[in-house]
């Protein structure tokens, strides 16, 4: 059954008619066209669908859209400001933290959540924070280096 969902998405207050059984992932991708958030394993195991909800990471493929009613949702599309990449995005670009790119939005959002809580993490803290995000190209070293680069 559809009902009105009101929430903040990338800084904008929205009101949409959303079905009870709609996943946050499908709401973002299909209803809002925010396809930066990826559908990976589709069962909460890979982290590709990580978005931020009130600054904390959340797996959009195992969250119902209505579960985040009234909250602040941020996706990869919300990080760039005035057409400029965020520091973290720039660092992933410069340090080659991206290979095929499919896990990258999830990696960046999980790393963004870490940096908001801990602005100067060690390599170990970065690895721990990203331990739920899989990269099938296995470019983990470059990813950790990219997050470090964003801090320095």
């Amino acid at each position, binding site marked *: 059954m559809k009902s009105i969902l009101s929430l903040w998405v990338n800084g904008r207050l929205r009101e949409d008619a959303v079905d009870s059984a709609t*996943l946050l992932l499908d709401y973002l991708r299909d209803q809002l066209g925010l396809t930066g958030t990826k559908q990976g394993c589709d069962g909460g195991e890979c982290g590709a669908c990580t978005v931020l909800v009130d600054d904390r990471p959340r797996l959009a493929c195992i969250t*119902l859209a209505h*579960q985040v009613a009234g909250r602040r949702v941020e996706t990869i599309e919300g990080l760039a400001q005035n057409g400029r990449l965020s520091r973290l995005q720039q660092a992933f670009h410069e340090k080659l933290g991206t290979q095929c790119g499919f896990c990258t939005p999830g990696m960046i959002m999980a790393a963004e959540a870490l940096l908001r809580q801990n602005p100067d993490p060690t390599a170990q803290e970065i690895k721990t924070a990203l331990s*739920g995000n899989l990269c099938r190209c296995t470019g983990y070293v470059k990813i950790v280096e990219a997050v470090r680069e964003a801090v320095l």
Partner: protein
Amino acid sequence: MNLLGDFNLLRPTSLDEAVKALSGEGAQPIAGGTDLLPNLRRGLSKPKLLVDLSALDHCSDIVALPDGTVRIGALVTLEALVDSPLIPEAVKQAALGVAGPTHRAQGTLGGNLCQDTRCVFYNQSDWWREGNGFCLKYQGDKCHVVAKSDRCYATYHGDIAPALMVLEARAEIVGPEGSRRILLAELFREKGDDHLTLSPGEILLAISLPAMKGWNAAYEKARVREAIEFPLAGVAVALKREKGRIAGLRVAITGANSAPLMVPVDELVGQEWGDAVAETLGKQVRKTANVLKSTITGAKYRRRMLLALARKLASQLWIKAA
């Protein structure tokens, strides 16, 4: 693939409302959803109504009571559990071992304790299970783990329950008949397709941990990689050492049976830790555990890990308390 089906979502703000909603046919509770939603997406249940408990008051904080008891609301996230100074180390170890950091920011204590049992024949897609003729746990009439069995042998893989159980945790439950308090161990029963003793409409509200002076406790799990995985074998041990003797010992296991179970080890109290005691401890763990082929990883490895982890933790706690 989305098998979520058609359900209504209700977000009650009062307990009465939540209990009433959950008493109805086809209603299921949801909190973080990290266990329920992957299962729903595989068509492992078809609820008519999901009752989102996240707006309920009084169960999302951790409070120290005057008598030293710590009361943990069922809606406390695993992340908050790990960050709290009031939570014993063993419980933090268990919570930190659950899934990945993003799951822990979303998943709740109540949801972790009440998580569904798991099995290699159950946690599969709809077409996979259909190809196998479904199973006793859901939609079928045969158990593929124990052929000819009349009960389901799906395994309980929660990490936090054993750590709380060795610390004598109690569960606070509310339901249509009022509220009741039980030992956490009594929340579970050894039945894979019906492993919780909650009646329809009942909600796990909070866990309370008594102050256990002089005890040390620890939890450890075996898994194939250091994140995301459920325990293939998990052991919690609490030990009290006094005057060179074991003054108290409590052991619980998970990832082995359809419920997290206490291992009877009272006969070891009063003795000094050593090879003979370790041997008896191993024997008791072996007697309690009923590890079957419910995971891809072989049962023999899981059985041996249970014994090894129990001995290792008890030995470490014994030395730590010296």
